[in-house]
C-alpha cells in the first residue's frame, strides 16, 4: 500500500512520538527520518520498530518523519499505525 495523503499522529509530549507521513511516488522506497531524546541509546531499536509496522502494513514507499520523546515500543507502533491509516484515508483523523 502507498500512502495517499499527508498525515500525522502522536504528540510532542514526553513518552510519545510524533509521526508525519509524506506520500512519495511509487518506487521511491522508504525514507525514515528520526530524531529522538534517546537517539544515542535507542536509534536502531526505534527504526526497527517503525519498519516492523511498515512491513506489517505492507507500506513500501513512504517518507516518514518521526520526532520521539522517549516513547515505548507499543506507543511507537500505535502512532505509526495511526499515521499510516490516516494517510491511506482508511481512518478518520486529523492532518
Amino acid at each position, binding site marked *: 500500500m502507498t500512502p495517499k495523503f499527508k498525515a500525522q499522529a502522536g504528540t510532542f509530549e514526553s513518552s510519545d512520538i510524533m509521526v508525519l507521513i509524506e506520500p512519495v511516488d511509487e518506487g521511491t522506497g522508504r525514507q525514515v527520518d528520526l530524531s529522538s531524546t534517546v537517539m*544515542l*541509546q*535507542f536509534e536502531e531499536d526505534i527504526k526497527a520498530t517503525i519498519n516492523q509496522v511498515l512491513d506489517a502494513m505492507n507500506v513500501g514507499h513512504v517518507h516518514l518523519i518521526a520526532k520521539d*520523546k*522517549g516513547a*515505548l515500543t507499543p506507543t511507537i507502533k500505535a502512532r505509526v499505525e495511526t499515521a499510516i491509516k490516516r494517510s491511506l484515508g482508511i481512518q478518520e483523523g486529523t492532518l
Partner: protein
Amino acid sequence: MKNVLGVEIPEYIEGIGKLEPYQGVWKSIIEDEVPSTNISRTLKAKKAHTSKVCSSLEDAIEKCKPFDGMTVTCHHHLRGGDGVLMQVIEILDKMGIKDITLASSSLTSAHDGLVPYVEKGMITKIFSSGIRGALGDVISSGKLKYPAIIHSHGGRVRDFLTGRIKPDLSVLAASAADVEGNATGSHGPSAFGSMGYADIDARYSKNVIIVTDNMVEYPCVPSTIRQHFVDYVVNIDSIGDTSKIASGTTRITSSPMDLRIARIAATVIEQSGLFKDGMSFQVGAGGASLAVAKFLREDMKRKSIQGSFMIGGVTSYGVDMLNEGLFKAIFDVQSFDAAVSTSVLNNPKHVEITCDQYANPNNCGAMTNKLDVVVLGALEVDVDFNVNVITGSSGEIRGASGGHSDTASGANLSVIVCPSFRGRLPIIMDRVHTVVTPGESVDVIVTERGVCVNPAKPDLAVALKKAGLKVVDIKDLKKEVDSMTGIPAKKKLGDKIVALVEYRDGTIIDVIKNVTNLG
C-alpha cells in the same frame, strides 16, 4: 590495581599523585587515628586597628599574591545564582595566572562560563562535589588537563585536613559582613541561609577574602565566619542573582509518579522499625525525595510521633515540620529557600552547622553517623545496589555526589527513591556507569514498580513484605523494566580517565572515562 568493586585504578596520576583503591565503606576509616598528613592553620598577624577592607575584588586578590599553580576555593551556597566564582577566575585570568586548581564545594549551572578557561588550560585541575551542564560536557570530552576529582561533602573536609586540597586563596561570598570579615548568609538582601560549606575554607586557606554586597556596621551579628580567619573584605554591587540564590518556599512535587514513589518510601520507613519517637531524618530538596517528608509529616502527626532532628540541605518544608514540633531541631549545612534563611536567623532550634560537623568521616562527631533514616535520589542504580548520581545516560558528567555517600554510610536506613525508567531510559543496570555510593551502604531502593531490599537486610525484607509492600528481587525488576524499555546501546567511551570519584574516606571508588560522541 583493582579496588574492591573491581574497578581498575591507576596507582599514580600525574598532577594528582598516588591513589588508594576503595576497600569498603568502613575499611579505610580507622577509629581514633589521626591521618599523618594532617595540616595546620595558617596564622597571619595583623597590627591593631589596621583595615582589611579593599576597594575592589581585584585589589584584594592582588594583595593575596596569586601565583601559577595555585589552588582557589569557593563555596556553592549561592547555587545557580552565584556571581562570585566567575569574577574570581576572570580576575586571575586578567592577571595572567594559570595552571589553577579550582576547588569549589560544588559547581552549578552558574559556572558554565568556566568552559573557555578549562579549554585554554588556565584551569587545569578541579575538585568538586558536583559538575554539570557545559562544564560537565567539556570535562567529559577530555579537555581538562588532569582528571577532575569528585568528592563527597564530607570528603571535601577530609581532603582539606589531609592536604589533598591545599587552598591558597579562598573567596567566600556572604550576604552580610563587616569590616573585619565577620560574615554570614543568614541575613541581608541576598540571604542564603547556612554557610556550612565555607567554614573549612575559612579555617585552612592561606588567604581568605570575604565578598559581600551588604557591608553592615561592625559587628556583623550573628555571624558564621569569624574575623580571626579573614584576611580581606570587599564590598561589591552584587554577589549574584538573588532569584536563583534562594527564593520563596519549596513546593512539593505534583508529579503523580514521584508522589507514588514517595508514598511507598514513607511506608517503607514506617515499617522499618525506626519510625518512632526520637527518629532522626534527612531528605533531599526536591522530587520524590522531598515528597517523602510530606507523607512522613502526615503520618507523624497521625501517630503522634516526635522525631529528634533533621539534617542536611534544608527546605521550608523541613522548617514547617520543626515549627510544628515534629522534630526537636534542624542541623543545617545548606539552606534551599528564602524561608529557611529567616529560620536560621531567628530560631535557636535551627542550628547552622559546618560541613565538618555534618559529614567529615575522619572526625569524632559527624552528624551523618547519628542518622536513622536518609532518603536519597539516583540517576542509576544497579543489581548490587550501587548508586550513580554523577554521570548521565551517555556517560557524561552531569550531577553531584554531594552528601549522598556520607549520609548513606551513616544512616541506619538509607532509602533510594527513583523511577524504574525515565523517558525510556532504564534506571536499573547490571552495573551503574559510575559508582558514587556503594551498595554496601544502601538498604532499600524504592521504585514505582516495586521495593528492592538489599539482601544483606533479610529481616527488613520480611517486615516490608508483611506490611503488604511489593518487595521484589532487583534482578527480576531489572528484567521487567528492560522488557518495557529495551536495552540501551552501549556508551561510546574512550580510554582517557577524565574524572576520579573519591569515596568519602579518600580512596578511589570509580573512574570516569571520556565520552566520544557528546553533543
